[in-house]
């Protein structure tokens, strides 16, 4: 770049533009969502002369092409990979972007081999065509479709699991948005809606005969999650922890607990922004546990220690468990009854319920069933999403 910036040759700038398009292509193949608008803006930026100064080129492109903190952190590396080779000269450095090669097949290889401008220009055009087809952020949506019906237990590899965890957390956050709609115009209510009232009164020569009211928006329920983390649930634990994290972040004064032989309050640990730190904290808390699940005993502990304080008529208690209980069913029934008196509703989510041929015949499950307001499956993203309208009704 350094020697290039000294000569302000017009043709040279033209070549640079080609490289710039190549760079956009490079960023696209690395997962940046870039459309025609970005391309036009890069051109506009180039015209203002920023192009010939490496630092400003970097900063300008960064502001233009990044759209979240994640992009921001990756940008410098990608920029260097494309524009700077180890000996400091600028080159089409496609060999650095392995991702690009794997995604676009031979494309990357060709680009690296041919220093020919014509070929590069071709590539740039190809890039345009691709984009028209792919269309920016569509990628995210289709990913969701693929995985919404995937059973959680079929997520074998780590990256898929991470992806699902992220989706689950995001979905939990979204739930709140839709559960508390804004105020609505009604014929009855507790606040006058002046806008509509004036509209109505035009008919009567300005006398407000027909009043319009605002109805208070529905108050968000207070969610309390009791999460089974015993061995039989180990497949799902982290996923539901992410779910709990999303809920906690989105719903004011919601709480989360994990249990198998003991009950632990984990709301604070889940509030930790950094997921690895949160996991560490959780691991510390639950170390040294063993033996089977004793749901009844844990519920008793919950009722005794927290029940009075945090469960009220706005609370929906959500128990997430497969219902395999080594304790006494009688105790479970008693405790659920006690809880039911205090809470608005009790919901039981069972990740096994989605499996073919599963019947809730486990002793614990049998004991609990008659006391539940909602018994629902939670084996894939779709089933969790369906939960939201159900919760609204409760």
């Amino acid at each position: 770049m350094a020697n290039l910036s000294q000569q302000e040759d017009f043709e040279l700038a033209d070549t640079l533009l080609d490289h710039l398009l190549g760079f956009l292509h490079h960023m696209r193949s690395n997962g940046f969502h870039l459309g025609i608008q970005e391309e036009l803006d890069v051109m506009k930026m180039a015209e203002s002369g920023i192009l010939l100064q490496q630092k400003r080129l970097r900063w300008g492109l960064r502001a233009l092409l990044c759209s979240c903190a994640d992009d921001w952190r990756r940008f410098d590396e990608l920029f260097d990979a494309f524009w700077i080779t180890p000996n400091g000269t600028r080159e089409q450095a496609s060999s650095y972007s392995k991702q690009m090669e794997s995604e676009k097949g031979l494309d990357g290889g060709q680009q690296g081999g041919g220093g020919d401008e014509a070929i590069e220009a071709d590539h740039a055009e190809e890039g345009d065509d691709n984009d028209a087809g792919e269309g920016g952020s569509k990628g995210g949506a289709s990913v969701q479709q693929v995985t919404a019906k995937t059973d959680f237990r079929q997520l074998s590899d780590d990256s898929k699991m991470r992806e699902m965890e992220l989706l689950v957390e995001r979905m939990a956050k979204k739930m709140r948005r839709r559960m508390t709609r804004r105020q609505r115009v009604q014929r009855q209510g507790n606040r006058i809606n002046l806008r509509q009232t004036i509209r109505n009164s035009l008919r009567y020569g300005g006398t407000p005969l027909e009043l319009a009211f605002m109805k208070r928006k529905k108050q968000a329920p207070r969610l309390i999650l009791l999460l089974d983390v015993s061995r039989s649930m180990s497949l799902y634990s982290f996923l539901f922890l992410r779910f709990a994290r999303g809920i906690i972040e989105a719903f004011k004064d919601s709480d989360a607990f994990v249990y198998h032989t003991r009950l632990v309050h984990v709301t604070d640990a889940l509030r930790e922004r950094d997921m690895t730190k949160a996991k560490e904290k959780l691991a510390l808390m639950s170390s040294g546990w063993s033996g089977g699940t004793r749901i009844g005993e844990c519920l008793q502990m919950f009722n005794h220690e927290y029940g009075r304080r945090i469960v009220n008529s706005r609370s929906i208690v959500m128990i997430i468990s497969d219902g395999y209980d080594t304790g006494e069913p009688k105790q479970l029934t008693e405790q659920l009854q006690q809880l039911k008196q205090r809470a608005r509703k009790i919901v039981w989510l069972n990740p096994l319920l989605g499996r073919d041929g599963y019947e809730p015949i486990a002793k614990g499950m049998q004991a609990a069933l008659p006391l539940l307001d909602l018994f629902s499956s939670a084996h894939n993203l779709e089933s969790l999403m369906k939960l939201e309208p159900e919760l609204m009704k409760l």
Partner: protein
Amino acid sequence: MKELTVFQARLAEADYVADKDLAATLLLQTKLHRPLLLEGDAGVGKTEIAKTLAKIFGCPLIRLQCYEGLDVNSAVYEWNYQHQLLAIKMQESASDSQASKEQDIFSEKYLLKRPLLQAITMDKSPVLLIDEIDRADEEFEAFLLEVLSDFQITIPELGTIKAITKPHVILTSNATRELSDALRRRCLYHYVDYPSFDKELRIITTRMPEVSQRLAGQVVEYVQSLRKMDLRKIPGVSETLDWTAALLKLNLSSLDKDPELIMNTLMCLLKTKEDHDLITRDVSDRLIARSG
């Protein structure tokens, strides 16, 4: 580069210490007329950037604070109901037709402009600050997207109002909620991080010239090591400034002079009970010793 240096100097004149990359982004924004999305933790000076821009351009700053449930009525426009009611009463005896009466009632005379409408109907481009966009609902975000792409607003009773001048739009977000991809794509993006030691020192001395170099250095060192601790709420630059102001008021010339008193001023930096419990006298003394 000259243009950039000049711009950076202008930012500095307005008491904002900006890194070169941020200055370059701001300069680019004024050229492309695209909104700029600033992300970063609370208290790193996101809002301040908008204020500084307004100062530099010598234009008004219009601020729209987002909150949950923010709706079009409070963000764009509202009719002046009292005024309208009066007008209807006065027109009662007039012989105008119903249609013309209605047209009068819903004319610009009775329109209350809220920030967004204000911003696009100004003679001179203002700086429009849309603060904490992540707190607003998704529906509002979608509406905002429409305004930011066309710079026009439709009022059913009046028709479409087109922007006279395009405002410089700054959006800030604390990332409490994922923003939509569409909005992100519409904007330039800059991530504002906690400042480095040197930068924070410069910020303090720029904002508070009366503070001694020694105290400023100590304060910044103290806060910087505080940020590395496992706090619930990490103190931002504004907290550092508050704390420095408090120390100045107490006539402290250096931190090690009165560690006891320092403990009593920590409420400027630590905003939760857990954090207060974490920073005990011992910890604080250690931090002071380390800050020299």
